[in-house]
C-alpha cells in the first residue's frame, strides 16, 4: 500500500491547468487570512470566474495552538480554562462539556442548584452568541448599524457575566464538580431586567434586518444545503437544523435540566441562508423562554462539590460526552490511563465540521453570496483550528 501526500501548491496548480468550458479565464484569489468577512484568520483560496465562485478551498491553521497537545500536560481542572479559548463565544458551554465528561467519568452527582445555574448560564451564553452573530451577519451584508446594535445588547449579558463570574469572555466558571463562584445576589434581578429589555429589541432586529427586502433577496434560496449533505458533512447545530433535520442534543440527550424545561426546536425548510438566519433568531426566543422558566426557581444548595485543590484522577478508559453549543455539537473525548492528566484529549468542535459545508454549497454563486454563506454558518475560527 502506498499513499500519496500532496500539498496546497499542487492542489492549486493542478486546478489551474484544467481547461474551462468557456473561454473566460479562471483565477485564484486568497480570501483571508486577513479579510473582513472571514471573522479572524480563516483563509480560503477561491477559484473565481469573473464574479462567480467556482470552487472554495479552505486553508486552515492560522490560529492552531495545539490545545489537544497542551491538554496532555494539564490536569482536568486546568484544562477547563483552555476550552474558553476554542470557541470564545460559547466559553461557558465549552467549560460545561469538559466538566460533564469528568463528572460522568468520576461519577459525581450534581445537585439541582448547580444544574440550574449552569443551564441558565448556558442559555444566556447562547443568546449572547447569537446576538453577536446577528450583528456580524448584518455587517457582512453591508449594513454596519446592526453590528453595533447587536453589540450594545450583548454588552448587557456580558455585564451579567462579569458581575457573577468576574470575566467577560474567557470565563472558566463551570468546573468539574460544580461552579467556581456562587451567583451574585443581583444576578436574578439583572437577568429579569435583561429579558424585559431585550424582547422589544428583538422585534427591532426583525424589522431592521429580517424584514428588509434587500436582505431577503440576498439570503433567500442562496447556499442551499440539503439534509443528506449536511449529515454527511457532520454539520450540527443551527446549520443542520436549517436543513430540516430535527437534531438537538438538548432534546435528544438531555443534560443539565433541559429535560425539565419547555422549549421548541426551530427547524428550517430548505437549508438556505435564510433558514439558518431564521433558526438562530428563533433560538434566541427559545433560549429566553428557558431562562424565564428557570430564573425564579434556583434552589438552595452547595455550588462546589469537589475540593478544588485535590487533583482529579479518572479511572482508566475512554470517555466521550457532548453538549449543544450555539454552533453545534461539541464533543470531548478523553482517554485516561488512570493518572491525574489525560493520556489524550480530543475536542470534536462544531465549526470544524460546519465550515466544510462552504465547499459544498458555494459553487456557481457570486462572491457576495460566498460572504453571506460564510456568515450564515457563524464560523468562529479558533474553534476550527483549536
Amino acid at each position: 500500500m502506498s499513499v500519496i501526500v500532496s500539498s496546497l501548491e499542487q492542489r492549486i496548480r493542478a486546478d489551474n491547468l484544467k481547461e474551462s468550458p468557456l473561454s473566460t479565464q479562471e483565477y485564484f484569489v486568497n480570501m483571508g487570512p486577513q479579510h473582513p468577512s472571514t471573522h479572524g484568520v480563516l483563509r480560503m483560496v477561491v477559484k473565481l470566474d469573473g464574479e462567480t465562485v467556482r470552487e472554495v478551498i479552505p486553508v486552515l491553521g492560522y490560529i492552531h495552538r495545539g490545545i489537544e497537545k497542551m491538554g496532555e500536560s494539564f490536569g482536568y481542572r486546568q484544562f477547563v480554562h483552555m476550552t474558553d479559548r476554542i470557541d470564545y463565544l460559547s466559553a461557558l458551554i465549552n467549560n460545561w462539556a469538559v466538566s460533564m465528561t469528568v463528572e460522568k467519568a468520576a461519577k459525581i452527582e450534581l445537585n439541582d442548584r448547580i444544574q440550574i445555574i449552569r443551564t441558565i448560564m448556558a442559555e444566556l451564553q447562547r443568546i449572547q452568541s447569537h446576538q453577536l452573530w446577528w450583528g456580524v451577519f448584518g455587517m457582512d451584508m453591508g449594513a454596519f448599524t446592526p453590528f453595533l446594535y447587536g453589540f450594545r445588547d450583548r454588552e448587557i449579558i456580558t455585564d451579567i457575566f462579569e458581575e457573577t463570574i468576574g470575566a467577560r469572555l474567557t470565563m472558566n466558571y463551570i468546573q468539574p464538580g460544580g461552579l467556581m463562584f456562587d451567583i451574585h445576589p443581583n444576578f436574578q434581578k439583572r437577568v429579569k431586567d435583561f429579558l424585559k429589555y431585550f424582547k422589544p429589541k428583538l422585534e427591532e432586529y426583525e424589522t431592521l434586518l429580517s424584514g428588509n427586502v434587500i436582505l431577503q433577496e440576498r439570503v433567500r434560496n442562496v447556499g442551499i444545503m440539503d439534509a443528506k449533505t449536511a449529515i454527511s458533512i457532520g454539520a450540527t447545530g443551527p446549520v443542520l437544523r436549517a436543513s430540516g433535520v430535527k437534531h438537538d442534543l438538548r432534546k435528544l440527550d438531555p443534560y443539565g435540566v433541559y429535560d425539565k424545561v419547555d422549549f421548541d426546536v426551530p427547524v428550517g425548510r430548505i437549508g438556505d441562508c435564510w433558514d439558518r438566519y431564521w433558526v438562530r433568531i428563533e433560538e434566541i426566543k427559545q433560549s429566553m423562554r428557558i431562562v424565564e422558566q428557570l430564573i425564579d426557581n434556583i434552589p438552595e444548595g452547595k455550588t462546589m462539590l469537589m475540593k478544588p485543590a485535590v487533583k482529579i484522577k479518572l479511572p482508566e478508559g475512554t470517555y466521550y460526552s457532548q453538549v449543544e453549543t450555539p454552533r453545534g455539537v461539541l464533543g470531548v473525548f478523553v482517554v485516561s490511563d488512570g493518572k491525574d492528566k489525560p493520556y489524550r484529549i480530543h475536542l470534536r468542535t462544531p465549526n470544524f465540521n460546519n465550515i466544510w459545508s462552504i465547499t459544498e454549497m458555494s459553487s456557481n454563486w457570486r462572491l457576495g453570496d460566498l460572504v453571506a454563506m460564510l456568515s450564515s454558518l457563524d464560523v468562529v475560527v479558533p474553534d476550527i483550528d483549536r
Partner: protein
Amino acid sequence: MDNQSLIAAVTAAANNIKLREKADRAAIEVPAEGLLALMQKLRDDAQFSFDMLCDHTVIDWLAEGTFEFVYQLYSMTHQHYLMVLTRVSRDNPTVPSVSSLWKIAEWQERECYDMFGALYDGHKDLRRLFLEDDWKGFPLRKDYKDDFMLERPQ
C-alpha cells in the same frame, strides 16, 4: 437501539469483532483490514444506518508501539452511537480511507495525517490541514520534539 442490542447486532454482522472494555458507550475493536467493509455495512444497513461520522481521531499508544484509530459514528434515524476502534503499528500507520462513505472523513483524515502522520489508503487529497506543507514531524505524537517546544517543569 440500546447499547446491548446494538453491540449484539454489530457482532453478528461481521466477524473478528472484539468488544472494547472500559468505554462509556458502545465500542468495538476491529482489525484494519476489515474496516472499510464494516463501515460500509454500518452506514448502509437499515438497522444501523450510521449516516454521520461524528468524530475521528487517533490515539498514540507509544508504549505498545501502535496507533489506535477512533471513529465515532452516529445515526440520525436511530439516534445511537457506536465507537469503532482499530489498531495498527506505528511504523506503518496505514488504514483504508472512509472518505468515500462520509464527506467529512476527508478532512478528519487530513487532520489525523497532519497531527499523527497516519496514512489513509484511497484518500483523494491527503495533505496537511493545519500546519504548513513542509513542516517536519507530527506534533501530536507522544515522541514529538522540536527546538522551540516549552516543557512544563515538574
